């Protein structure tokens, strides 16, 4: 079987039946390995490619890797808490991404997503705390039918109002 790695996966009508094309979609495990190494933005883009990729990209463990990639293994129990509070994808979108980008910018680093910026334990802690506050606020809204929280920037999810400050653009 020939692996035409440099070809993007396209099933061209004139592909010869004799040559078997490598289709990444047939190899989900490889796909996941690749997606695991993407940065947040690319992962989001990948989710838009096709339905299959979308389903895979929604997989929370991908986002978990993204969140904790540059940090030593998080304490046990974090996963249970994060999942309960809404999952890693939400954690990333609502807290981690803004925190990293704001703090990274302040430290004058490059794109903090891509470069191996070390994310310290303190930042982890802060993000988790903010995430918890976010969950708590959403509890309130569900319960009391509260006023709409203005949908912030995070990928379609409406973020709780107390984290609105994270969604505001920072004038650097």
């Amino acid at each position, binding site marked *: 079987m020939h692996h035409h790695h440099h070809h993007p996966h396209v099933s061209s009508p004139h592909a010869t039946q004799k040559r078997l094309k490598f289709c990444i979609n047939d190899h989900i495990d490889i796909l996941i390995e690749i997606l695991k190494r993407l940065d947040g933005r690319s992962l989001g883009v990948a989710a838009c490619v096709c339905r299959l990729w979308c389903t895979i990209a929604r997989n929370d463990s991908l986002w978990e890797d993204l969140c904790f990639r540059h940090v030593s293994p998080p304490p046990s129990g974090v996963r*249970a808490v994060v999942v*309960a509070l809404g999952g890693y994808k939400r954690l990333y979108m609502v807290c981690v991404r803004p925190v990293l980008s*704001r703090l990274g910018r302040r430290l004058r680093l490059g794109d903090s997503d891509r470069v191996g910026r070390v994310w310290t334990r*303190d930042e982890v802690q802060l993000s988790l*705390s903010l995430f*918890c*506050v976010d969950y*708590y606020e959403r509890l309130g809204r569900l319960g009391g039918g509260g006023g709409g929280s203005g949908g912030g920037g995070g990928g379609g999810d409406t973020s709780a109002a107390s984290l609105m*400050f994270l969604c505001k653009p920072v*004038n650097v």
Partner: protein
Amino acid sequence: MKRDHQESCGVGGGIAGYDTKSGNNKGESSSSMGKGKLWEEEQDPGGMDELLAVLGYKVRSSDMADVAQKLEQLEMVMGTAQEDGISYLCSDTVHYNPSDLSGWVQSMLSELNPPMCLDASGMLQNQHDPVLGSSTVTFSNPLSHKSEIFSGDYDCDLRAIPGVAAYPQPDSISERENSRKRMKTSPGSDTSNATTSNSNSTPPLLADASSSSLSSSSPPSTIMISGNLSEPSRPVVLIDSQETGVRLVHTLLACAQAVQLENLKLAEALVKHIGLLAASQASAMRKVATYFAEALARRIYKIYPQECLDPTYSDALEMHFYETCPYLKFAHFTANQAILEAFATASRVHVIDFGLKQGMQWPALMQALALRPGGPPAFRLTGIGPPQPNNTDTLQQVGWKLAQLAGTIGVEFEFRGFVANSLADLQPEMLDLRPPEEETVAVNSVFELHRLLARPGGIDKVLSSVKAMKPKIVTIVEQEANHNGPVFLDRFTEALHYYSSLFDSLEGSGLAVPSQDLVMSELYLGRQICNVVACEGADRVERHETLTHWRTRIESSGFDPVHLGSNAFKQASMLLALFAGGDGYRVEENNGCLLLGWHTRPLIATSAWKLGG
């Protein structure tokens, strides 16, 4: 007919001042010689100006521009010469015939013989330097370009009212106020001339400490002029808004002083004046001035704000404040850090929150406890809140939400709510405290203790109750301000500074204007302002005191300080860095306590305590 050449010489002649918007910083002067000057005037060229003649002044129409210019110079000179050249005017009551304006002005000018350079900027800078520090730069720079227009000492605005002992004479003053107001309203639109950029990064625009100059001002700037004038003889110059900003502050302080001296007529006049001045300001200063003016008005007219407002309303306001700026978050995070460290090895913990409100502090603590190495302790929360109208049980609702959260993250949770009008009503026995071997207690108070200072004995009772609770740690967050002094004027001045900084920081929060959050946050602060300024006695609950005061009080009650560690500092710094406008916020450490401030002004202080040995 317009005075064209007035514009060209850059001196706003005050005549239909609308045309002086040539982009320079000069405002227009409304000569007080005649409101006639404000409108289109008809005149017969060469003869006496008709409108002025009606008022008793004889000025050649052809001389008008010249006279106006000289008047401005005169005013400026008088302003700069305040200390030296003018005192003799007070004692030496030589009267000039004001009907011959040209002649009068000329003689005044030559008498004063302005030897001082027109270094208005230097003057202003010196006046405000000790207080403002770096911010004087923003003040003096624009002024240094304006060599001609300088409004001098603002005290003169009232004291320059002609007639012996012009101040204080409530009736004549309010009348003059009214006439002056008439003059000011028409160029009101022109104060948009202001080229001020009260940018977010500049420190608060307050010029102060001329409260001292205010009190010593009775003097020497009164000009004795005879005649049956009904208008103040001093031209009033409205410059760009930075100048008016300083004037605004002075007027606020003057009004407060009038209130303190029970001179209510004067205060009333001044309050109205503030509104006009405030209109010319950029947002933060305008809002602060408006709130303070409203509070002063309430105090003057004795329309006291209702204290017993719906707590859900005040909770909602506080929520918006929570979301807009980092003060409450800072308070919560730093207190939580101290509590977390105190709970490091405990297996059952009990937090007593003196002001539960919406319980926004506790999710973060619970999450940190959940992820504690070794697993979470059993967490018990006792929340205290004010009585609610309509029998709604807000405390229970909050408790329920927290319980849900606790269930989600796997923390054993128990909640109890207590309704109390005042913390002093609380008895430790009610709290169902368990022995210290069984559970570790933390007491938390965010912006609650200062209210107890309104009634005598309240704070002592509460502190002894706290001791009876045998807490491992007590976290206290309070405003860092001295709003509880005995003298009203001092309180007012302090509050003006404090809330100006706060409003300034709100402006810098990067929220799109207008924004509901911003408005509600300002309302939240506005209510505090109202309480500090307008209320007295048991109603005045916003009795903020500085960290030093609290330290003394708490230590003498038998507590020892606990230093907030570097973790708290780091968390706080990171939190602040997340906020837009984060450059303006500063975290400081002071003997183990953390202070959050805006630029150089500390605003909030967190401290932690344990039972004394």
